[in-house]
């Protein structure tokens, strides 16, 4: 079973990345989309990254929204920079997990798949992409 794991926590505390080239390509695409969506208001994921903090208020506190933008960008850029690394430290692994999770949620929000019924009925290629991200997240969460 160990050979099938996508991420492994080593004795020295580092997390080994065992993604294939195809797996890293999926990660590159997901991380790249998050970086682009944070910068581009027209990106289909942009709205998903700017969900309301306090829905009872017309506008959220600009400091909080700036903090969110900054932290999402920082995590996504760190994930992009470490994409080819074989080992990740805790902060880098957290950046990967957060960015994968944002990519997963943004994909679902952008495609209107916020229910199990809609998810089951979505095109197979999209469903396969979602399942791949879930697999990465599940494996990474086991190490953190």
């Amino acid at each position, binding site marked *: 079973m160990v050979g099938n794991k996508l991420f492994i926590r080593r004795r020295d505390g580092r997390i080994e990345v065992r993604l294939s080239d195809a797996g890293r390509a999926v990660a590159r695409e997901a991380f790249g989309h998050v970086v682009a969506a944070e910068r581009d208001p027209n990106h289909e994921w942009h709205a998903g990254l700017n*969900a*309301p*903090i*306090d*829905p*009872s208020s017309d506008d959220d*506190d600009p400091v*909080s929204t700036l*903090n*969110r933008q900054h*932290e*999402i960008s920082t*995590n996504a850029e760190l994930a992009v920079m470490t994409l080819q690394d074989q080992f990740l430290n805790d902060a880098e692994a*957290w950046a990967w*997990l*957060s*960015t*994968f*999770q*944002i990519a*997963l*949620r943004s994909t*679902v929000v952008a495609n209107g*798949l*916020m*229910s*199990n019924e809609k*998810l089951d009925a979505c095109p197979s290629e999209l469903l396969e992409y*979602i399942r791949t991200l*879930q697999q990465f*997240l*599940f494996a990474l*969460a*086991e190490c*953190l």
Partner: protein
Amino acid sequence: MKPMRRLTTETDVTTEKIVATERPWNVVVWDDPVTPMSVVVVIFKRIFGYSNNKCTQLMLTVHNEGRAIVWSGQRERAESYCVKLQVAGLQSTIERDE
């Protein structure tokens, strides 16, 4: 003695006002059909430092009831936690406690 009595009354009224305006703010996490359960637990542990049991209970509340209040307190801290949860990719909002 009369001024003393008035002062006491004023203090009581002021205290009541403070209590009335200090309703806590709740941080709410909402369910979605795709986030793996173990990921939610890891995020709660990382952000709040709760025990594994508490994180699992909160995650199950989100899953079964559609939402869970994961923290309550001052508005500024509630906003800060909400942003951290959103940065980690969970759907989260704040609301005034009823």
